[in-house]
């Protein structure tokens, strides 16, 4: 396994238990979707893996996180990037006062020399032809879709084996979202990069995912392959917004939902 989480517990500020024993794994070259409601602990899971948790006073208190067979939950983020694990943080965090090309180059911290940077840069431009014309543009003025392309491109600059992608669809038009997920799929196919994608938009995510996990209240409550999950009645009902009978929801359904949730959680 490329990435393996076993019984991971995360505590913020020494008191708030956010993850209550998460088990999850990502195989080499796979796309794995992590679904769940707001506050379920998806983003915390990603930050626990990438080491960004510590900058927010969070801590992995038990369990283990292994990347390529090596325990990493005490590693600094910079060493993880070096090993090929990059997180794309939620909310399209471009560096707004720097140009597109500068943004990309900042991502290439771990590369050896200028020649290598050039080479990877050209490759990234190959995947994002739109960015070539924008290379000298100050990135703060790009559109939302372009910014999302830029942050994914920036993550690619580190030549990662695994990218943790946090809500790439946030606030983007459906067409752009589809485009981004097609890109994720082709990056996996051509570069063999694995993805762990956190998404609210279960539909698009499950369309490309090999596997998927559903989180509730800091626990994994469902696991399955992409097609399995898409066919799962609960997923359909809770995340894809289709009720079983195909009609609108009634109070009875809401009660049913709560009961199911209790059972799942």
């Amino acid at each position: 396994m490329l990435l393996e989480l076993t019984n991971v517990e995360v505590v913020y500020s020494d008191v708030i238990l956010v993850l209550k024993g998460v088990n999850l794994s990502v195989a080499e070259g796979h796309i794995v979707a992590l679904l769940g409601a707001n506050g379920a602990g998806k983003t915390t899971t990603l930050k626990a893996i990438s080491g960004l948790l510590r900058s927010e006073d969070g801590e992995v208190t038990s369990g283990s996180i292994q990347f390529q067979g090596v325990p990493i939950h005490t590693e600094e983020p910079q060493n993880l990037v070096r090993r090929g694990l990059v997180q794309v943080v939620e909310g399209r965090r471009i560096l707004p006062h720097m140009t597109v090309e500068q943004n990309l180059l900042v991502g290439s911290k771990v590369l050896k020399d200028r020649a290598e940077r050039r080479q990877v840069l050209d490759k990234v431009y190959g995947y994002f032809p739109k960015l070539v014309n924008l290379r000298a543009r100050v990135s703060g003025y790009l559109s939302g879709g372009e910014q999302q392309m830029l942050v994914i491109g920036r993550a690619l600059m580190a030549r990662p084996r695994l990218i943790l992608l946090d809500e790439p669809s946030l606030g983007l038009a459906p067409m752009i979202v589809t485009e981004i997920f097609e890109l994720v799929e082709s990056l996996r196919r051509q570069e063999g990069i694995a993805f762990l994608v956190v998404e609210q938009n279960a539909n698009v995510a499950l369309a490309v995912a090999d596997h998927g996990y559903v989180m509730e209240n800091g626990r994994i409550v469902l696991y399955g392959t992409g097609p399995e999950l898409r066919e799962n009645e609960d997923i359909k009902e809770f995340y894809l917004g289709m009720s079983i009978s195909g009609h609108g929801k009634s109070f009875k359904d809401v009660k049913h939902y709560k009961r199911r949730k209790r059972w799942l959680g």
Partner: protein
Amino acid sequence: MTSLLSQVANGALTGLLYALVAMSFVIIYRSARVFNFAQGEIVVVGAFLVWTLMSAFDLPVWAAVPLALLASVLLGVLIERVILRSLVGEELFAFVMVTIGLLIFIRGVVLVAWGPEVRFFPAVLPMAAVKVGALVFDRAMVIGGALTLVVAAAMSWFFNRTQLGLEMTAVAEDHQTALSLGIPVTRSIAVAWGISGLLSTVAAIIFLNGKGMTFLASDIGFAALPVALLAGLESIGGVVLGGLIVGIALGLASYFLDPIFNGGVAAVFPFVIMVIVLLIRPTGLFGWKTIERI
């Protein structure tokens, strides 16, 4: 006429010196988002280091100056490691207060270590005046002005072209994003404090070359403030331009206004320009405009 020209030209040189000090503010602000109120005191520490090595230990210039520069780099790094490191993620107010505390503390240390007496700062740079036509310049200031331009060009290149510089700019933009890209944020900040300490001592040498000095030389820190703010706290090139604007305005103001007010315009005029500019452009002429969201 010559006198006006001389005032303006000398004003421009003074402006460039302020720009050098302002640059040491800006470099810290760019990476750590901290405005170091104690910068003036660091200039004084640098000055006393040079003085001690040359006058008390009798070291030659070629040994004393590099040693002092090295020591001031270490001082900057030390401050970052001991004090600011533990404040990462705190509110703006904490940084204002801690650097004010630092200002008071370092002044105390300077007084304990070197006392309040007037010392003669050694002539590290040649003293002979530079004459251009009828204009006369302090040679150290001319060298300093040229040095400021070179340093600014080098810093601009460093922050926009080199990998380390780009990474430090990324740190200035957003600590967490920088972290997620594998950039060691605290190391970048320490490097910035080191560079800033170095520039402070260079500024001290130019400013005080062959003159009498006391701990009050730290006022140059506040004098350089308007230049840093006028330019905006992020822009290296802007600082040079800001320095020239302030310096030339200073020269003009001294020439036209000093006879009216009996002198002393030079101390207040940069602040007046600064307030006016900030009212029009709240992040300075070349500073990063922030997009605030609720």
